């Protein structure tokens, strides 16, 4: 049923409770945060001009000054340079794992919904078995193969993310493929490529966008969490979770140090969450 079509009010006057997100302008705020973080990750290393691993043991835990705008860490390394590199790493991981989950996940989802039959049954069975394993556990299992390496994180996250894309795309595609718009497109003679491009994709894209921002946030947080429990990226590579755990003991001596990675992580996740929140209630 389409209540709007019979609404007794002129469209321009439709009176609905003002959407709450308007108060925060959330999407643009989120996008702005992400642009800021990305710019910091991209240009930070150049701007800081220092080597993120170069130490100055005689100048550790230095307060922020002109040379080191964010101070130096417990080994006298430039926090600005380290933070920028860490941001780069986190964003890369997020981007990479989301992209490599999205493409097969969405493609398989469309294929399963389109073809049905054993293609669908097999892919659902695979998805179900991965789904029974919370993503972090999968990452932990893989991380045991190669502790401290980047690939288990990446692989584990992608492996656990694709299921979500697959499920969402398959479910939505099922509905769309049975919908009049696609039935009519077929009757009109349009082929599968056109249907995917003009009918499926525009409907799926906003949802996938939301999902992507969520899984990117999950990736960033998971990486930090693994760093925190000592299974993530190994030092001296700057990584937010590892930095947090390394700098936590100095929370009283040099509070700005621990605040920096926490702040950056929070801003990144907040940005991703805000960008994605538009449709968060849809799930």
């Amino acid at each position: 049923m389409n209540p709007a079509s019979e609404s007794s009010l002129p469209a321009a006057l439709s009176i609905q409770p003002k959407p709450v997100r308007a108060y925060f302008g959330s999407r643009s705020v989120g996008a702005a945060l992400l642009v800021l973080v990305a710019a910091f990750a991209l240009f930070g290393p150049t701007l800081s001009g220092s080597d993120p691993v170069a130490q100055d043991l005689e100048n550790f835990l230095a307060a922020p000054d002109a040379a080191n705008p964010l101070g130096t860490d417990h080994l006298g390394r430039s926090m600005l340079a380290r933070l920028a590199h860490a941001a780069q790493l986190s964003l890369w991981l997020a981007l990479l794992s989301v992209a490599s989950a999205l493409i097969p996940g969405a493609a398989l989802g469309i294929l399963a919904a389109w073809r049905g039959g054993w293609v669908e049954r097999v892919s659902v069975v695979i998805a179900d078995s991965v789904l029974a394993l919370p993503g972090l556990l999968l990452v932990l299992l893989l991380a045991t193969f190669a502790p401290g390496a980047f690939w288990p994180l990446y692989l584990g996250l992608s492996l656990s993310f694709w299921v979500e894309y697959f499920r969402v795309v398959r479910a939505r595609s099922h509905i769309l493929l049975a919908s009049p718009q696609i039935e009519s497109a077929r009757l009109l003679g349009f082929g599968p490529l056109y249907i995917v491009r003009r009918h499926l994709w525009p409907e799926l894209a906003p949802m996938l966008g939301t999902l992507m921002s969520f899984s990117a946030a999950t990736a960033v947080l998971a990486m930090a969490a693994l760093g925190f429990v000592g299974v993530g990226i190994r030092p001296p590579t700057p990584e937010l979770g590892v930095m947090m755990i390394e700098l936590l003991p100095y929370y009283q001596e040099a509070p700005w140090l621990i605040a920096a990675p926490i702040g950056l992580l929070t801003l990144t996740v907040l940005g991703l969450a805000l960008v994605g929140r538009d449709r968060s209630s849809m799930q």
Partner: protein
Amino acid sequence: MNIQGISPVAGVLGRRGLQALLVAALVGTLSFFLMRMLPGDAAYRIAAGRYGYDLVSAAAAEAVRVELGLDQPWYLALVGWWAQLAEFDLGTSLVTGHAIADDIAHQLGHTLLLAFCAMALSLLIGPALGILAGLRPGGAIDRITLLGATVLRAFPPFVLGILLILGLSVHLGYLPAAGHGEATSVVLPALTLALGLAAGSCRIARDAFSQVVNSPYYAFGRTKGLSDRQVLLRHGLRNAAVPIVAYLGMQMVFIIEGVVILETLFAWPGIGHALIHAIFWRDVPMIQGCVLVFALLFVTLNTLVDLACLALDPRRRH
């Protein structure tokens, strides 16, 4: 009543049962290859775990190798591996030599306690705030909870945990910082987990509730002549509960993952704690046992959520 002749409960149980089998197979296989692909010498690792690294020596490692039969060919090991798993025998820890089933049975209690407390707390906090926010969308409570939930979601659980320790334990001394043994020990880790959970369920509850309040059946309840309280109780809560309970299924991931990280932080002797340790020591049977129990726990909890959804929402039953 079902047309296909399969009751919906049996349908849920069957589907989830299959899922449990699949995940057991997945975890078992991964663990086996993990065992085989362990870099370095497993006997050495095990010996170090057993005797402390000050005492690890070639002799100790050799003793371990013979004792555990690590020198047998891989195909025998594979067969043994599967046979054991099929008999629900999780084997013995490479590090402690204890039966893993015993260890985990003990740890599972702690994990369940933590998860249950966290869930209960989050259900006290989240939906209550969500309903308050949903009753007046755009109102002050709505805006405050939105801001709170958004920021809280952006906070890694372990950071939140540390903040709570610093605030409630170090500065105020209300609660023990970590450990277990005292009745109050569970509060901090449970609260940490619950706040994250509540941040999600609060918004879901809010959306669900505002949807219910704006629904035609809610309006019909009012125009029928029911008071606001009567409509809320008779038509609001149950309908709003349907998406909240369904969302609980999605939150299970968060609970399981949170448990793994927070048990380590709070020295809570559950399976999550054991898992991180086992990974650290490459105690593969233990890793397998922990991950398996977590996965089965996850499937079980999801089954309960499914059944709760069936109970709450008659539309799913037909």
